[in-house]
């Protein structure tokens, strides 16, 4: 089955050479993705993913690989399905009753949507940072220690202390909060809160981190700090980031995937996508003609 998919995906180059589709034709017919949606060392493989909210289809036949230790940016206009796609990767869509996911999503070659797969275990391996900073109404320490505590990752208090310090340091927050670890996490500034949420996520030591527009609620300085942090984190983690800001995608990611109306239009090296997009829709979006 995988082979058939790969054959199918080998075609897009031809399609694009045949001439760019108009936007109108996109609404009616299935279009193959142009560029290189697949890669050799894939951490996550998604095949023929369709997502429905009740009767409405939000994602159409997405085939995309996420390589190990890469930062991949998902861009596209509002409502294009990039957040929905992101949430299928750690089954956060399970919490929405009317949401249905079809297709295969493999993490290290294992399907995460089988009955056998436990979403709790999956979310420990695939962490998530949300659009709006959402620290728990607890102390800074307890925010970071919560994940390790529920998963039983440390054996005693001093190990937990070390893990909290390490996570906060990695998130670039430790110097700012080391004297007030028992102050409430909700009392920090927006940018600090978001870094706290990142520290909380990396304390569980996941393999993949999903970021849903992590800087959209922050000012430029806080945003710059988050971006810097993403650049450091990519050494240890695979990162999938959804963003509205094309500059941000250009700054932090190696690959970029462009979504449009629930379809994956184009995937490629970030440089190539932003300097020389293949698909007409990608080009229009990049140059700011819609979105």
């Amino acid at each position: 089955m995988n082979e058939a998919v790969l054959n199918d995906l080998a075609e897009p180059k031809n399609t694009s050479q045949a001439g760019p589709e108009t936007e109108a034709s996109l609404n009616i017919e299935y279009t193959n993705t142009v560029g290189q949606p697949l890669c050799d060392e894939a951490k996550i493989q998604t095949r023929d993913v369709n997502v429905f909210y009740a009767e409405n289809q939000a994602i159409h036949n997405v085939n995309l690989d996420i390589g190990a230790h890469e930062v991949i940016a998902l861009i596209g206009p509002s409502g294009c399905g990039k957040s929905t796609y992101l949430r299928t990767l750690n089954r956060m869509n399970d919490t929405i009753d009317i949401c249905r996911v079809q297709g295969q999503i493999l993490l290290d070659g294992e399907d995460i949507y089988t009955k056998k797969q436990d979403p709790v275990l999956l979310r420990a391996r695939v962490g998530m940072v949300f659009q709006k900073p959402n620290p728990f109404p607890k102390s800074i320490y307890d925010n970071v220690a919560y994940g390790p505590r529920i998963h039983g990752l440390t054996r005693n208090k001093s190990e937990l202390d070390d893990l909290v310090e390490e996570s906060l340091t990695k998130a670039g927050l430790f110097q700012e909060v080391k004297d007030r670890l028992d102050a409430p996490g909700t009392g920090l500034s927006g940018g600090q809160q978001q870094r706290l949420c990142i520290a909380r996520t990396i304390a569980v030591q996941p393999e993949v981190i999903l970021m849903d527009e992590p800087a959209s609620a922050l000012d430029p300085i806080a945003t710059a700090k988050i971006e810097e942090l993403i650049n450091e984190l990519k050494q240890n983690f695979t990162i999938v980031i959804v963003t509205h800001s094309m500059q941000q995608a250009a700054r932090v990611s190696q690959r970029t995937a462009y979504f449009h109306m629930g379809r994956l239009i184009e995937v490629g090296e970030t440089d190539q996508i932003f300097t020389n997009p293949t698909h007409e829709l990608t080009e229009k979006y990049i140059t700011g003609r819609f979105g």
Partner: protein
Amino acid sequence: MNNTDLVRKSLKKRYLKERIFKTVGLLSIVSAILFLLILLTDIFTKAMPAFSQTNISLEVTLDPDVIGVGENPSEQDLMAADFRRVIRNSLADQFPGVTKRKEKRELYSLTSMGAEFQLRDMVIADPALLGQTIQVEFMADDDVDAVIKGAIDRNLPESDRRVKDQKLGWIETLEESGQISEQFNWWFFTSGDSREPEMAGIKGAIKGSLFTLLVTLALSFPVAVAAAIYLEEFAPKNRFIDFIEININNLAAVPSIVFGLLGLAVFINFFSLPRSAPLVGGIVLSLMTLPTIIIASRSAIKAVPPSLREAALGLGASKMQTVFHHVLPAALPGILTGTIIGMAQALGETAPLLMIGMVAFIVDIPQGITDPSTVLPIQVYLWADSPERGFLAKTSAAIMVLLFFLIAMNAIAIYLRKKFEKKW
């Protein structure tokens, strides 16, 4: 005319409307406060006499022969002894010349029926008093109390007056000799109900209310919170759950007396639980408070931001952990407020308790949840229904006690809400 002129023209009318609305709002608040003040002042002034008790100071000789006990009497002997005669002798000594049987009865009714028990308790506490002559402040009868406090007008013609001329004369003699005094009425807070107004206390009703509320809280709080959590967080969205939700809302609107009938039929007749007991009262009231607490808890849980749930789930917390570590603590202020409002409702509830026999006349102070007892609002009802003048003040005083508990509970609700909200 340009736009500026048009807007200017309409301004006057708009401001007038605003002023009218503000005035109406202010008026309604002022009238509400006024009515509340009238009500409270009325209750307060009527209740005041109940908080003081008139005493008659008499010199009594505790002659063992008159009392009818021998040397070194046991407690049982003293319990059976006749202390009434000592008091009667003392009164007869003070007002010689009263010989007619009817007049004697009038004279002896100057002190309360409780006076002999007062004396008995004193002697049991200190048997050495036997044989001595001592000065004792005896509780006065409610008629004497009424005369002293002015509730019975001394200037009325004798035919219109409850206390006749002869008795009034005795009272005035006692007053002149300084034997009549008033003091704070501790008795009211330390004894149970009585047929005699001066001996009636509120302690039985307070304890009954307390036991009833304890049972109500212990039953309704865990059940209601568990139901609210299940319905909000775990229940599938289907018709059966919708049906349950609608019925919970309906249950909140069922007249409370229906719950009383249910309690009578099911708990007393079918399960043979004791009649008039706080246990059954508590069960019935918890049926009544359940929907209130469930509805309040559900809206509190619903108000917890979804981002908090996502944060926990995103870290790999299970659904149960998400609910108990994050959702419940965040919803707790709302849940507690709802619970205390429900409990305050239960405290003031009368009708269902009438059905299960808590309206009985009970003198003994309940010692547990299975002892027969009454509750504060029913005590108010019982006293309001009594013809004796002294019960008028007692009724208002009982209302004050009830209001005090309600205000205290609301204060606790506000305190708890503030305390748990601080964590945010």
